[in-house]
């Protein structure tokens, strides 16, 4: 087994699974004074096959094998702690949950085009079981596609989904929703954008309301939110509006994310390492 691939830092640090949910299931660190993010230990990987190293290897090699260039930087030695940095950035997920998400990602990203990346049609298919276009799915897809390269990669997938976790902070959810609704990405939500979205929803539900009724609904809401009266809702007005109308963010929470390993019990069974094993 080649050490070169894993050798990121000069000193051997330990791979550690960090659970940063509010559940606070922190694990013991072997070196408590080492506050820095651990990278992968070459020695550990070679010796302790039955524990975290094997998982870490499988994780990395699995990614590489599937052509997902997840650890770009590993080979250049600059990504010290990149794996843990990734876990940190994913917000509320544990290692097992990330693994479960990876299995889901693999299924979705190979459903139409077998390249390990989620294309727009694959995203539609995952949500709708058909490839019908929908304004809202398009917006969600574009936000997931943080790099803007037309596909959703695994890190984008996990990071975006973490916003929908029940434990994710409200500010994060509000920020995501604001960007969602800012259809033309001007940094503001305009009245006509709100109207466009309401019409899209009504169209999706096959519901006929008079245009007067639509106007009334849109105006009433818009005027409530646009406290500065400048015909557009900025981030600050939005945050205030959301605070007063918490139901607005109801679509920003997926309760299933809290029990991911319950929803996909097969992932836990097949998981090579339990979280208890990850402690040194």
């Amino acid at each position, binding site marked *: 087994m080649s050490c070169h691939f894993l050798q990121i830092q000069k000193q051997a640090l330990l791979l550690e699974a960090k659970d940063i949910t509010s559940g606070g299931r922190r694990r013991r660190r072997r070196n408590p004074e080492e506050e820095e993010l651990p990278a992968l230990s070459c020695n550990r990987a070679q010796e302790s096959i039955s524990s975290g190293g094997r998982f870490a290897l499988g994780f990395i090699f699995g990614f590489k094998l599937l052509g997902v260039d997840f650890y770009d930087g590993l080979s250049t030695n600059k990504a010290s702690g990149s794996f843990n940095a990734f876990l940190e950035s994913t917000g509320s997920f544990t290692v097992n949950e990330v693994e479960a998400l990876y299995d889901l990602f693999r299924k979705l990203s190979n459903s139409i085009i077998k390249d390990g990346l989620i294309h727009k049609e694959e995203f539609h298919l995952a*949500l709708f079981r058909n490839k019908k276009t929908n304004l809202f799915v398009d917006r*969600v897809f574009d936000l997931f596609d943080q790099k803007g390269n037309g596909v959703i990669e695994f890190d984008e997938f996990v990071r975006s989904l973490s916003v929908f976790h029940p434990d994710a902070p409200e500010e994060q959810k509000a920020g995501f929703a604001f960007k969602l*609704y800012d259809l033309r990405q001007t940094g503001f939500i305009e009245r006509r954008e709100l109207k466009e979205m309401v019409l899209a*929803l009504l169209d999706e539900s096959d519901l006929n*309301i008079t245009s007067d009724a639509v106007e009334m609904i849109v105006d009433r809401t*818009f005027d409530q939110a646009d406290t500065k009266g400048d015909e557009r809702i900025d981030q600050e007005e939005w945050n205030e509006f959301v605070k007063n109308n918490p139901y607005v963010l*109801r679509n920003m929470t997926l309760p*299933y994310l809290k029990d991911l390993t319950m929803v996909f019990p097969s992932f836990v069974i097949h998981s090579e390492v339990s979280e208890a094993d990850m402690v040194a």
Partner: protein
Amino acid sequence: MSVTNLNAFEIISFSKGFDLSGMFIVKEWRNEARFTSDKSASTIISKLEDVAKALNLRVRKKDNGVVKMQGRKEGRNGVLQFDIEIFEVTTSYHIIEMKQTSGDSLEYRQLLEEGIRPALKDIVLAWHGDE
């Protein structure tokens, strides 16, 4: 039973396009259901009350406009309980959500498919998730 008024952003939030749960769970396994209706709130409410009576469910109103329905007998996993909430888009367009809160999931889905859905046929425009 009271009705929750929806603002425009709340209306939008009901879009299927925002419902990412389809990635995680198939429709058949969900313990929540939603349907739209073009009937008035009072029509919907009295229909729900009729259905509850026919299915021998106890009805309890909570403070926040949510109605709790409860089976009278202990099931496989305790008493079946679910919440119903009515949202108003306009006076002739409502969205009704039902969410199971306790009891056996399979029993709940059976009750929904065999008891509740057929009984509500007259007032339902469409069930969310049915294509």
